[in-house]
């Protein structure tokens, strides 16, 4: 696009001419330039010049003669720079209103101007420059001036530059006038041309095209894009028709001219379309343009002109598309809207056109080369073409003849033209142009992440660099883009790229790169299928992709590395060779493209092995190289370098030198043959014996192929081996690296060497279930049976059986001590009493569920033991893991450790279940008001009467399976309770009997409680039970610490309140059948108030009773009222005394003594009680329950 002249590239600009008063020209032209759209100014200082500018040159040949060209080359330029639409004559007001001589001059100048402008229809404007606003202009003169100039009054403008605001106004006025007149001028001109077109008043088709073009240009001047487009298209259409008919010029030049004109018209059309945002139309238009001219190749000797032209079409359109801002935004919507037009998304992308431009330029170059080569003598063309130059018509060339001052053009024949064109063609370096085009395309594609198209462009760039001899750059490009083909398996494309790359390396003398490319090519899966269709030339230096070609490449490399032959590169100085001074070392890893050259699979036949035992290892090598390759020597390397070994080829005994320097006692194996046949596994199986436990891994295999050529190949496990990336798509039989298919699926290049069998016993004493609270002892015994124990270490781990192993359940039970339900307290062992300080510290450092203990040196036969002290805080089953690690042979740092593991599950149990209950004194019932309400409110607290003696019975039940010895049971008052708030004293003296509890038995103790504070939540304290396992009750005695254990149980709070009334029932301890006794009901008023109490006594069939059944009585404050009855029991046995119901009127609460309290046992006759009274009491108390 840059090569187009500016007047073609940019839309036309109206031209105004200013004459006279040159001082004011800069201001006016500056203003006109800044207009939108701008106007050009042709400023002429005085009137004499205008004549020269405006006078027409000699009239073109008569209308009858056919024109000698379609478009004049300078027509557009002329309208931009020489032919103004409007001429503005500027006169100063002084002159206008000056003396008659001045006036006369004004008139003359005006007349001359008119005479010059009229024939060409150029519009006239008269400007009178008023030097100051104060200046008076003679009105008559003004009218006269207007008449002379023959202009409308509005085209006589007064220009006042004196002050800023006036100047601005004048300029705007001027601009408006100019715009209006210019439009008129171009409209008139356009109309004139249009009539000619419409009336078909032209003598030849060339003129038709020219007129259409002119109409379009004039329309463009007026910004009438629609009309411009219509006439450009019309011109284009007519031009296309002309191709077959025109005979004016010799055939080659004729076509050249038409194409040039077509190019201009097409450019205009595309520009207009794109600027109008009609991108789809533009693309469609270009497609048509391309289609209609693509085949117009022209004469064979000038064919390259066609390709050049084609290339330019694409380039220009690409650039237009690129600059058109609409492009990028609307592509997706555009393609979405137009599925029917058959436009593809690619056709909206500049990259596509750049690529094709480059493509056509390549075609041009090759045709040009052919054309040049056909010339017998290259110098021949240089002479004749010198004076040929572009002629006055677009697309025409002619010989420039100098005849004195004047220059004239003489038409040339086609031969001369071709000569000229070839000379021109030779001047350009097409390669760099092509690279630039492809590069633009490539970058554009890369930005769109269109990698394959981009790669194609990249490959083309590389080929151009290769052609111009820039091998370093070329190779870089080839290698970059080969990657994509390798990745996607496009073998033929890869072959091509590699072939170039290989050639570049050769030219550069880079041996390693050369060998790598060659080996990769030789191992590519190309077979004979492709030969038929691929020519030699097409694939570049690689030659056709075929098996013979691969073989010859392979052979070349074999010879090179064997040192027999150096491959000559172009420059004699850098021969490719592999010698002692220039050895070659290739590395092949898991992602290398050279994996198909050499693939090493290593599989141990077992996954684990005992130390010292030997196992088998299969080393399998595979190569896809076409020829059989003989390996001189193989070295197998392990992660433990002492196992490295070398395999030598028995057929080549001379080459036993080591590849890498290793230890002296290096293992050397000899194999009968180390020939690698194409696609056939070379399997070698060797015995490996490992002494050291741990991981033994084969790292790599190094193959030596010639005296100075080695390939380092990373070992792969068959189990995790990927297929060869390119060969995996080939339809061929795949074989396993090992004979055993199972091993091929599961085989690993790593083997785990196990530890030696431990010859040490580790025993954990099983002591049954642990009890919460006690320090539970687990004895650990170590007996060195067959090994000495050096630097032994005992690891102890406590893990929750239910999984996890976490003891901290803080989130659920925040009250737990340190979050641990089970804790490893200490490790106690007699052996290291002396250094216990240190050990204790060591254990303290570690967590509560984990311990680490050092074991002293033990000789064979020695034993050692310790005890683990574990404490349970919650009943919970726990896994105890103990592992002993030791080394049997001395204290060296790297000595192999042997481990023994033991585990034991231990249940944690609650030893006792403590329960309690409160009782009121026998046959004494306080009226507790809260109890009355409690029925509805479900009060959780037990209520106790204030200052009354209540009875607390504590019982502890043995929940374990072992007998427990209870040492003491007492209630500890909480610290925060005042000592006097509640008096708790044991109801009886301390344990009379032994306190031994067999499993399931309950221990009970009675306390008297006298609450002394009226409180709704009185803390009762904590029950403390001191117990121990009963000695001599089990076999595990030894492991239980003899200290007694304190189990605590918090009592719930109670509600204490004052009972206003208390009833006490009094009767003998027992009755005798028929024997009357007295039954007292004592009502005690504890308040300061008079209490009215209603009472009633129900009849009972068991008794005959005397006394009042119902009644109301008043009990004085702080006094007692006694109701007494005489009762005669009628039957024997436990009998219910007649039921008493009391109702306190003040509290409207009625209550009855409990059933228990009103029971009496009646003997048939008087018993002979010889047993102690204590017994009797006990029986009764049991009965009372």
């Amino acid at each position: 696009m840059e090569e187009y002249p500016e007047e073609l590239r940019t839309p036309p600009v109206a031209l105004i001419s200013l004459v006279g008063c040159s001082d004011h020209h800069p201001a006016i032209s500056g203003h006109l330039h800044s207009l939108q759209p701008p106007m050009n100014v042709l400023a002429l200082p005085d009137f004499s010049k205008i004549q020269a500018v405006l006078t027409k040159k000699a009239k073109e040949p008569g209308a009858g003669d056919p024109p000698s060209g379609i478009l004049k080359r300078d027509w557009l330029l002329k309208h931009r720079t020489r032919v103004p639409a409007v001429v503005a004559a500027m006169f100063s007001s002084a002159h206008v209103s000056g003396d008659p001589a001045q006036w006369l001059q004004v008139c003359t100048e005006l007349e001359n101007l008119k005479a010059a402008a009229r024939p060409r229809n150029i519009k006239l404007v008269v400007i009178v420059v008023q030097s100051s606003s104060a200046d008076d202009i003679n009105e008559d003169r003004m009218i006269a001036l207007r008449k002379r100039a023959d202009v409308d009054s509005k085209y006589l403008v007064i220009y006042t530059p004196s002050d800023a605001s006036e100047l601005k106004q004048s300029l705007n006025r001027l601009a408006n006038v100019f715009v209006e007149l210019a439009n008129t001028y171009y409209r008139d001109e356009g109309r004139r041309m249009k009539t000619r077109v419409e009336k078909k008043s032209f003598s030849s088709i060339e003129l038709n095209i020219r007129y259409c073009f002119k109409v379009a240009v004039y329309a463009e001047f007026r910004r009438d894009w629609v009309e411009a487009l219509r006439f450009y298209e019309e011109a284009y259409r007519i031009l296309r028709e002309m191709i077959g008919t025109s005979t004016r010029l010799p055939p080659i030049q004729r076509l050249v001219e038409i194409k040039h004109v077509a190019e201009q018209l097409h450019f205009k059309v595309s520009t207009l379309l794109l600027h109008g945002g009609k991108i789809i139309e533009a693309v469609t238009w270009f497609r048509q343009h391309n289609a209609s001219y693509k085949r117009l190749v022209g004469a064979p000797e000038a064919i390259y002109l066609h390709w050049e032209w084609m290339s330019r079409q694409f380039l220009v359109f690409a650039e237009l598309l690129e600059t058109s801002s609409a492009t990028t935004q609307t592509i997706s919507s555009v393609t979405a809207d137009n599925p029917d037009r058959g436009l593809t998304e690619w056709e909206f992308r500049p990259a596509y056109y750049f690529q094709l431009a480059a493509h056509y330029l390549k075609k041009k170059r090759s045709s040009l080369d052919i054309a040049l080569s056909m010339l017998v003598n290259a110098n021949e063309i240089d002479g004749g073409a010198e004076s040929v130059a572009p002629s006055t018509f677009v697309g025409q060339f002619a010989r420039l003849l100098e005849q004195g001052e004047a220059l004239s053009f003489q038409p040339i024949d086609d031969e001369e033209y071709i000569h000229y064109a070839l000379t021109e063609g030779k001047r350009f370096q097409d390669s760099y142009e092509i690279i630039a085009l492809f590069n633009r395309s490539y970058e554009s594609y890369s930005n769109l992440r269109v990698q394959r198209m981009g790669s194609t462009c990249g490959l083309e760039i590389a080929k151009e660099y290769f052609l111009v001899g820039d091998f370093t750059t070329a190779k870089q490009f080839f290698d970059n883009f080969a990657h994509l083909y390798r990745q996607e398996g496009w073998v033929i494309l890869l072959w091509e790229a590699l072939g170039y790359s290989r050639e570049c390396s050769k030219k550069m003398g880079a041996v390693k790169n050369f060998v790598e490319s060659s080996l990769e090519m030789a191992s590519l899966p190309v077979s004979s299928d492709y030969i038929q269709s691929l020519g030699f030339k097409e694939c570049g230096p690689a030659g056709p992709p075929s098996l013979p070609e691969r073989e010859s490449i392979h052979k070349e490399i074999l010879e090179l590395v064997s040192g027999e032959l150096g491959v000559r590169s172009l420059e004699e100085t850098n021969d490719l060779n592999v010698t002692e001074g220039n050895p070659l070392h290739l590395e092949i890893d898991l992602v290398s493209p050279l994996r198909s050259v050499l693939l090493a699979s290593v599989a141990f036949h077992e996954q684990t092995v005992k130390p010292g035992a030997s196992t088998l290892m299969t080393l399998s090598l595979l190569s896809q190289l076409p020829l059989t390759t003989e390996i001189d020597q193989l070295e197998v390397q392990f992660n433990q370098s002492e196992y490295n070994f070398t395999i030598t080829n028995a057929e080549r005994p001379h080459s036993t030198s080591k590849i890498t320097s290793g230890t002296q006692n290096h293992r050397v194996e000899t194999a009968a043959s180390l020939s690698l046949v194409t696609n056939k596994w070379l399997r070698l199986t060797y015995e490996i014996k490992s002494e050291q436990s741990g991981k033994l891994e084969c790292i790599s295999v190094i193959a030596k192929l010639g005296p100075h050529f080695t390939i380092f190949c990373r070992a792969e496990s068959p189990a995790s081996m990927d297929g060869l990336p390119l060969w995996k798509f080939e339809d061929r039989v795949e074989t396993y690296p090992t004979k055993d298919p199972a091993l091929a699926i599961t085989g690993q290049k790593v083997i785990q060497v196990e530890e030696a069998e431990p010859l040490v016993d580790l025993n954990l004493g099983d002591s049954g279930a642990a009890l919460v609270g006690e320090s539970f002892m687990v004895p650990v015994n170590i007996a060195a049976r067959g090994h000495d124990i050096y630097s032994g270490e005992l690891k102890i781990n406590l893990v929750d059986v239910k999984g996890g192993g976490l003891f901290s359940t803080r989130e659920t039970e925040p009250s737990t001590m340190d979050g641990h339900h089970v804790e490893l307290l200490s490790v106690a062992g007699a052996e290291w009493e002396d250094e216990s300080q240190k050990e204790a510290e060591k254990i303290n450092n570690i967590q509560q569920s984990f311990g680490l203990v050092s074991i002293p040196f033990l000789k064979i036969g020695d034993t050692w033991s310790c005890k683990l002290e574990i404490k349970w805080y919650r009943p919970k089953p726990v896994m105890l893991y103990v592992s002993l690690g030791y080394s049997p042979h001395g204290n060296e740092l790297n000595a192999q450790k042997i481990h023994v593991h033991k585990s034991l599950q231990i249940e944690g149990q609650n030893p006792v279940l403590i329960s309690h209950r409160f009782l009121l004194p026998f046959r004494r019932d306080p009226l507790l008001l809260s109890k009355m309400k409690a029925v509805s409110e479900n009060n959780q607290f037990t209520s106790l009467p204030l200052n009354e003696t209540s009875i607390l019975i504590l019982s502890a039940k043995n929940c374990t399976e072992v007998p427990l010895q209870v040492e003491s049971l007492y209630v500890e008052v909480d610290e925060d309770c005042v000592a006097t708030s509640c008096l708790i004293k044991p109801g009886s003296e301390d344990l009379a009997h032994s306190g031994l509890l067999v499993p399931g038995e309950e221990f009970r103790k009675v306390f008297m409680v006298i609450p002394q504070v009226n409180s709704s939540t009185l803390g009762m304290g904590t029950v403390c039970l001191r117990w121990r396992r009963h000695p001599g009750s089990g076999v595990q005695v030894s492991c239980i610490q003899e200290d007694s254990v304190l189990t605590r149980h918090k009592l719930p709070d109670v509600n204490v309140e004052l009972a206003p009334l208390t009833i006490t029932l009094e009767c003998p301890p027992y009755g005798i059948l028929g024997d009357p006794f007295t039954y007292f009901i004592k009502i005690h008023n504890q308040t300061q108030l008079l209490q009215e109490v209603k009472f009633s006594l129900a009849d009972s069939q068991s008794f005959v009773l005397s006394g009042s059944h119902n009644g109301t009585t008043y009990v004085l404050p702080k006094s007692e009222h006694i109701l007494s009855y005489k009762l005669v029991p009628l039957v024997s046995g436990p009998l219910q005394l007649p039921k008493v119901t009391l109702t306190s009127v003040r509290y409207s609460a009625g209550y009855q003594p409990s059933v228990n309290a009103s029971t009496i046992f009646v003997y048939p006759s008087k018993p002979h009680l010889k047993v102690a009274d204590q017994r009797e009491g006990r029986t009764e108390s049991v009965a009372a329950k």
Partner: protein
Amino acid sequence: MIVCVAVVGHQNNPLYIQSFTEADDALKLHHIVHCSLDVIDERVNNPKKSGPLLNETFLGLLYPTENYKVYGYLTNTKVKFILVTTDLDVKDADVRNFFRRFHAAYGDAVSNPFHVPGKKITSRTFAESVSTIVKAFGLSSAG
């Protein structure tokens, strides 16, 4: 005239590529087929909103190059068929028909128990039926 047909696997690897020209442009056809995968990617990733084309196996004209037109077809199994023709005026219906027959031939070829999924198609029967279909295409578009 069809100058090239290709089957490209779901890893964009060529499974079958056959050109039908006398000229030395097989390599170029390889490039064209390879590049057309970009268009397929683009078209599949940015599907057109218009209804009937959505997820259709036939992808239509992929792109015109200097002398060729490239058509594409993407099966449900992510296998791409690519057709390169020199005909300037091709009816979509003909291409659709071609691809339908081609797909059938492909289906037969990969259903061969000796064919390993994902590998190149080397079946001679397939090659024969492809060349029959290709020839038929020329006839139908000419008539």
